[in-house]
């Protein structure tokens, strides 16, 4: 099984590619977290069964290493009449799951059910017919080819290229699409300095939030006197509303592993650690499989491909602390300590994990590395903007039609993401704001729709790209309540080490809770601003420094809503229940009594066929009447 040198790797790659070609068709069933929840496992089993019933060979395993050569006529040892039915990683179009892609037709079926399998097999697989009702339809157009669907057509998928197209649980699939060729190139044709220089010249910036230059970090680690060095991958994707890294770890784990080995070679590290959130069990499972297969084939471990370079990789599971996404907290957690940040300097590149020089990058950053090595720094810089080259994956969620995972060049505008790829606001409501960068980020509003999304433009605007979560909010979202929600989150996650963050976020949360409950005054707003600024200026780590950002940015952009809450005691969206009243419009009410019967506190009175009324002193604003009124006579406001 072990691949001992470059020649054998080339052979393994060729053999894998041939095996893929030998498949008369390929069915890729999305087995990302989203589609699995929709039942894609059953769809997979059913389709495998149907193929076997037809006497077809399913998913022939490819063997590598010594003793397994081509057939005497040079052809691939795999029989040409076999079927590839694969569980793939996330296709990104989570809203439409479970998703099934069929090659070579290139069709994507959406919202597939187990009961559709027989039809898919008999019509599409056996006869090549496309089943119209399973296609994605927009504005009356049914899209046959996946690549033509506007959601995909407007994207540039480089990091996510293989996600959804290969089976992430088999290394041969990664080989078939040219996997580990960048590692081979680095190990045999480049010196470690050349690798560092290539990444440095590409100006790749860290995808985890800060946007710090990756090559700069690598160069610093490579220059340290200490010879024991580590490579660490931050897979602790904790921002609520972000799942880019999860999809890469689940859908194309080898790409990230390859990036880590290249990083190790470049900076002279022999060991690497991947720190993954405990909330991502599937990502952990797929990474374990990928590491085991890479070890078995000799791409990890001693003397990789006979190059003399050795590299070991470990997985550490997180234990539910958001602050561990911060570099020094993350390394403390791997060391078995409380995950608390420490003061800097010394920086992680000087004294990181176990006190040794450490390269710390996130999943998406490492996944960028192989293609930069393969195609060169100049190629990479031709994508995106001048100061932020490359692409960025975003998780687009919230009140949007096409929820999912997308990848676009840096500098793409919010408008293109929301309206072209995202398909617009759910239920055709009005766009209100987008929360970017999670609880550490800020809010962008209607006038920002044409802002190019890259590290620097967002920083100027007082927001940050963060890890790439975009939560779209419509007119029904109360921005004050959203600010309270984020403050509640950071307050919970504050590690308690420094006072500004520990005490300050608690006081800010209390102020916001009072406002939402209808007990706020204008002074509350001033205090929020003062506290927020102090916390930003004086906290120890990134979590504290950015904790007040959502409040400060909404206070700036949605001040009128805050004022409404504290002065008029009104919440225009009806989200803050203490601030709204429910009323019955006498002109619309037919007096059917349904509301009175549904009211849990008997606050509604009236006589049949006459308009009913709500006793505001008894009403608990639960909205049971509102949901049940057949005439739309009841409203909240």
């Amino acid at each position: 099984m072990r691949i001992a040198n470059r020649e054998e790797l080339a052979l393994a790659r060729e053999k894998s590619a041939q095996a893929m070609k030998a498949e008369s068709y390929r069915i890729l069933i999305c087995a990302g977290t989203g589609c699995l929840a929709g039942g894609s496992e059953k769809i997979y089993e059913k389709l495998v069964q149907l193929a076997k019933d037809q006497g077809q060979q399913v998913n022939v395993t490819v063997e590598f290493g010594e003793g397994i050569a081509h057939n005497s006529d040079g052809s691939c040892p795999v029989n040409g009449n076999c079927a590839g039915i694969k569980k793939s990683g996330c296709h990104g179009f989570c809203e439409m799951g479970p998703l099934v892609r069929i090659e070579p037709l290139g069709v994507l079926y959406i919202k597939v059910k187990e009961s559709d399998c027989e039809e898919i097999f008999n019509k599409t697989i056996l006869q090549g017919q496309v089943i119209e009702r399973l296609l994605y339809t927009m504005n009356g157009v049914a899209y046959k080819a996946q690549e033509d669907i506007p959601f995909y057509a407007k994207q540039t998928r480089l990091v996510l290229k293989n996600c959804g197209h290969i089976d992430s649980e088999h290394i041969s699939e990664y080989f078939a699409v040219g996997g580990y060729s960048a590692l081979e190139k680095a190990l045999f044709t480049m010196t470690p300095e050349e690798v560092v220089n290539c990444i440095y010249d590409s100006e790749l910036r860290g995808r985890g939030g800060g946007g710090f230059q990756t090559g700069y970090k690598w160069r610093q680690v490579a220059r340290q006197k200490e010879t024991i060095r580590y490579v660490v991958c931050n897979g602790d994707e904790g921002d609520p509303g972000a799942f880019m890294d999860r999809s890469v770890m689940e859908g194309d784990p080898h790409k990230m592993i390859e990036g880590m080995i290249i990083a190790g070679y470049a900076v002279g590290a022999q060991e690497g650690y991947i720190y993954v959130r405990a909330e991502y069990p599937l990502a952990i499972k797929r990474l374990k499989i990928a590491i085991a297969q890479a070890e078995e084939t000799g791409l990890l471990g001693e003397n990789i491909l006979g190059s003399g370079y050795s590299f070991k990789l470990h997985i550490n599971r997180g234990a539910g602390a958001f602050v561990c996404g911060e570099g020094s907290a993350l390394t403390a957690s791997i060391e078995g300590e409380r995950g608390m940040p420490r003061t800097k300097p010394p920086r992680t590149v000087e004294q990181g994990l176990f006190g040794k020089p450490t390269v710390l990058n996130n999943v998406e950053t490492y996944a960028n590395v192989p293609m930069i090595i393969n195609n060169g720094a100049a190629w990479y810089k031709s994508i995106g903007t001048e100061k932020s080259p490359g692409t960025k994956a975003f998780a687009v969620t919230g009140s949007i039609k096409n929820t999912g995972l997308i990848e676009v060049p840096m500098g793409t505008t919010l408008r293109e993401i929301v309206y072209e790829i995202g398909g617009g606001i759910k239920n055709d409501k009005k766009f209100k704001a987008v929360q970017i960068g999670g609880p550490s980020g800020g809010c962008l509003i209607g006038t920002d729709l044409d802002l190019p999304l890259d590290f620097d433009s967002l920083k100027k605007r007082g927001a940050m790209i963060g890890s790439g979560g975009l939560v779209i909010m419509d007119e029904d979202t109360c921005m004050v309540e959203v600010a309270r929600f984020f403050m509640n989150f950071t307050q919970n996650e504050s590690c308690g080490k420094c006072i500004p963050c520990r005490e300050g976020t608690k006081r800010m949360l209390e102020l916001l809770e009072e406002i939402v409950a209808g007990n706020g005054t204008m002074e509350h707003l001033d205090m929020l601003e003062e506290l927020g600024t102090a916390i930003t200026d004086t906290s120890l780590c990134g979590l504290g420094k950015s904790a007040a950002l959502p409040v400060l940015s909404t206070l700036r952009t949605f001040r009128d809503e805050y004022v409404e809450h504290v002065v008029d005691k009104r919440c225009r969206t009806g989200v803050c229940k203490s601030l709204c009243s429910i009323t019955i419009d006498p002109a619309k009410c037919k007096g059917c009594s349904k509301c009175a019967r549904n009211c849990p506190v008997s606050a509604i009175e009236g006589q049949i066929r006459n308009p009913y009324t709500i006793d505001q002193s008894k009403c608990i604003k639960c909205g049971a009447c509102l949901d049940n009124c057949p005439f739309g006579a009841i409203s909240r406001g």
Partner: protein
Amino acid sequence: MLDKSYYEKVDEIIAGYGTESRFLIPIIQDVQSEYRYLPPELLKYIADKLHITEAKAYSVATFYENFSFDQKGKYVIKVCDGTACHVRKGTDVLEKLREVLQLKPGQKTTDDMLFTLETVSCLGACGLAPVLTVNDEVHPAMTPDKVIDLISSIMKEEQA
């Protein structure tokens, strides 16, 4: 006093890692996934084996959200309270669950030890918001009505 089998299990887990203090977190993670909580007696035992103080082990175990010294119910329900789920009304789902499971304020596990209700900051399944998991199985696009169906189907299974 816990049964001898508990300590034997812990010995087995520790043997798989080693006795360096850096293995504390993975070891207690494995113990917790075995018993679905972290028996305090075992924490002291592990601390001794790793040559660290009990206080130190306790400080680590209490820092991380995932560790629990309380026994959990047979079904652990985690309701996602991430941004996407929050915007899509995840709170209504949580409130309904508290009502259906008849949990008093501050109570996490039902008296019959069948259900434990927790919130989690983000499950990363934002496309399916609002979501919850029952023993790690993801249930997408939840509504208060679907919560009632979910609980009653589990109850039915339990009675059968």
